[in-house]
């Protein structure tokens, strides 16, 4: 038998071709479907909440005399609300939606938006007129705001059903009552807010009302969290099985059960683990109802095969989210991954502000803010987490030679109350006051001379910001690298899309950096393997030699 080498090679390639074509044949059917879907699928539809959802309330607010008037401003609407809902404002007063303060009972750290410095726009202090666009109140423009005022509670921002109510940055938490150009210098104008219609159509909170702020954290759609963005307003099933607009259609409140305006669930003191099983209605106690376990129980995978049992037993180490949210920012919005303030302030030759966009259309440089990077469909980072988060607050000493952890998730492999959680870790560079040895607070926006967005002068902006914090700016600032993390818990994928075993149980798998736990399949005893295979190979060679000699000797007779 003598086959020319070249022929074999060709034959081999033809087999290869055949295989390759069979592979592509398997993929091919998806193509026409893709084309069809692309051509027939409508653009993103913003469903008007009123028309889409029929109210099931026993009260038609448009029939209420108190609401049949032309309101001049938000507080007047609130005053009307309070004539019936007499206790509502006081209830809101005790929530962190109003106080922007949160005392962590475990660490005793004073948190909340009012106190923490993040690595996005960094700090609320000295920038209230802008930040308070997401405050459930009216008129918070500086530290003199009256937190006891009932009429300054904004009822409508959470209870609007029209989608027409918008609080704009710079108005200290008010919507526009007059015609206003928005976005600034865009040539587009917003009509005065129709408070009468909005007040008459109030209803339950919805993904749209919660999302009006929570989807836009960090200054834009999808920017901060990655697992919360406007694609969750009317999401398809692939994006979130629970919120699927054509399926279960959960509102935020379905999980974030609320009582007396206190909304459950927290990123300051999250529930990392709950071993108590499903939460029955009427259950007394202080368990957080906003967890997977609260509904799905301790053994969420229906019992059956050994493989399924193994999934259930994984819950002693792994949070549900780790497998069931294989990636975040899976909608059509990219989330911000880094923000470098140190490059802010570059202007073009004529001294004008520069804006550069990336290939996906997102702004990647802005003179006002510096450099950004964005990413869609992001693979999370993973950490051991027991529910305790420690923050680096204003005044806390930091080591500027290392990356400053603005918050740090506590927990470890050895701690029975820790689970492996997916997180978004946001990295950046931000101002640091060298003399005061603290993260810097600077004045970002405002019509005055000191706002960084007006004159691009760090020293002026810092001087103003630090003063608002009650500290004299030392005059010297540098940029420090910072890191801040958020647990990933929204955008739960359909079960078919959960992580497969070997996405972690393999070399360089998803959990390669988690540490502290032995994971089969990760090839983590290289020394033993080397010795073992060498010994086995030597045994094999030994018997082959032995056999060879036997064969040779027998042939020789």
């Amino acid at each position, binding site marked *: 038998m003598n086959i020319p080498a070249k022929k074999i090679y060709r034959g081999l390639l033809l087999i290869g071709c055949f295989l390759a074509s069979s592979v592509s044949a398997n993929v091919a059917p998806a193509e026409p479907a893709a084309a069809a879907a692309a051509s027939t699928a409508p653009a993103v539809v913003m469903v008007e909440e009123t028309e889409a959802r029929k109210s099931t309330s026993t009260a038609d607010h448009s029939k209420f005399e108190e609401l049949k008037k032309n309101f001049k401003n938000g507080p007047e609407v609130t005053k009307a609300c309070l004539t019936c809902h007499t206790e509502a404002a006081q209830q809101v007063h005790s929530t962190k939606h109003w106080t922007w303060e949160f005392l962590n009972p475990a660490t005793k750290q004073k948190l909340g938006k009012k106190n923490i410095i993040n690595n996005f726009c960094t700090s609320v202090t000295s920038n209230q007129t802008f930040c308070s666009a997401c405050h459930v109140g009216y008129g918070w423009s500086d530290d003199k705001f009256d937190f006891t005022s009932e009429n300054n509670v904004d009822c409508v921002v959470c209870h609007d059903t029209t989608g027409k109510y918008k609080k704009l940055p710079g108005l200290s938490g008010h919507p526009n009552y007059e015609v206003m150009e928005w976005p600034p210098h865009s040539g587009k104008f917003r009509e005065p807010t129709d408070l009468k219609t909005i007040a008459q159509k109030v209803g339950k909170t919805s993904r749209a009302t919660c999302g009006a702020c929570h989807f836009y954290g960090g200054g834009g759609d999808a920017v901060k969290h990655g697992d919360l963005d406007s694609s969750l307003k009317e999401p398809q099933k692939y994006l979130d099985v629970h919120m699927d607009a054509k399926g279960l259609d959960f509102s935020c409140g379905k999980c974030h059960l609320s009582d007396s305006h206190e909304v459950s669930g927290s990123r300051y003191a999250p529930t990392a683990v709950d071993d108590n099983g499903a939460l029955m209605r009427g259950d007394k106690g202080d368990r957080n109802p906003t967890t997977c376990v609260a509904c799905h129980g301790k053994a969420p995978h229906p019992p059956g*095969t*050994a*493989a399924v049992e*193994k999934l259930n*037993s994984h819950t*002693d180490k792994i949070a549900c989210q780790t497998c069931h949210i294989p990636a975040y920012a899976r909608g059509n919005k990219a989330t911000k991954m880094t923000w470098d303030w140190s490059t802010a302030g570059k202007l073009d030759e004529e001294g004008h502000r520069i804006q550069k966009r990336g290939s996906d259309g997102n702004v990647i440089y802005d003179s006002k803010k510096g450099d950004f990077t964005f990413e869609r469909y992001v693979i999370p980072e993973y950490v051991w987490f027991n529910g305790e988060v420690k923050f680096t607050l204003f005044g806390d000493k930091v080591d500027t030679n290392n990356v400053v952890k603005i918050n740090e998730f506590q927990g470890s492999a050895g701690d029975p109350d820790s689970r492996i959680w997916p997180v978004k870790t946001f990295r950046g560079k931000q101002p640091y006051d060298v003399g005061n040895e603290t993260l810097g607070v600077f004045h970002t926006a405002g019509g005055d001379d000191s706002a960084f967005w007006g004159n691009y002068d760090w020293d002026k902006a810092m001087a103003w910001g630090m003063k608002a914090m009650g500290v004299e700016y030392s005059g010297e600032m540098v940029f420090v690298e910072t890191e801040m993390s958020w647990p990933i818990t929204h955008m739960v994928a359909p079960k078919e899309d959960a992580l*497969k*075993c*070997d996405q972690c*149980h*393999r*070399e360089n798998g998803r959990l390669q950096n988690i540490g502290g*736990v*032995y994971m*089969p*399949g*990760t*090839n*983590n*005893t290289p020394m*033993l*393997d080397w*010795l*073992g*295979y060498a*010994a*086995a190979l030597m*045994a*094999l060679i030994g*018997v082959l030699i*032995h*056999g060879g*000699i*036997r064969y040779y*000797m*027998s042939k020789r007779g």
Partner: protein
Amino acid sequence: MKRIYIFKRFERFWHWSQAALIITMLVTGFEVHGSYDLLGFKTAVTTHTTAAWSLVWLWVFAIFWHFTTGEWKQYIPTTDKVAAMFRYYLTGIFTDAPHPFKQTRLSKHNPLQKLAYLFVLAVINPLIWITGWFYLFYNDWAAWGVDFLNLEYVAFFHVVAAFMMLIFVIAHIYLGTAGHTPTAHIKAMITGWEETED
């Protein structure tokens, strides 16, 4: 040449099903360990677990059989003729020298074989079974009060034992060809009848 009936039906069934299970567990076990990607991690784990339970049951029957038939005595070691066996494998086998051990129904394993099987029974098996059992019931460690154990070490010794088993299998298969003809022992293990020199 004389034919004697050495391996009884259950023994042969035990041998071959055990061989199949051990090879299956070696193949899947090293995949679970992370040495290669063949069946996929999930399939490897479930196959390994299923094979382990099958082997447990096979052993329950085998232990019962060995004690009721008295065949367990075949595994009592002896130092007699061990040196002669070594010498035979190192030189005699090449020159067709007479085998120093005479196989009979009452003594079917040669002295070296007895020692090797004793090593399997007394060292490899306990190591692989005990570590395997803890590995399998990893989630019950706390309930058993053994949560001072560390999976890393349990897995380590399980793999050590697996390598020893792999080496045993290689040697065992090769020595299976060391009869008076290369297939003589293998045929005996299939039919039960061994041809011996008289």
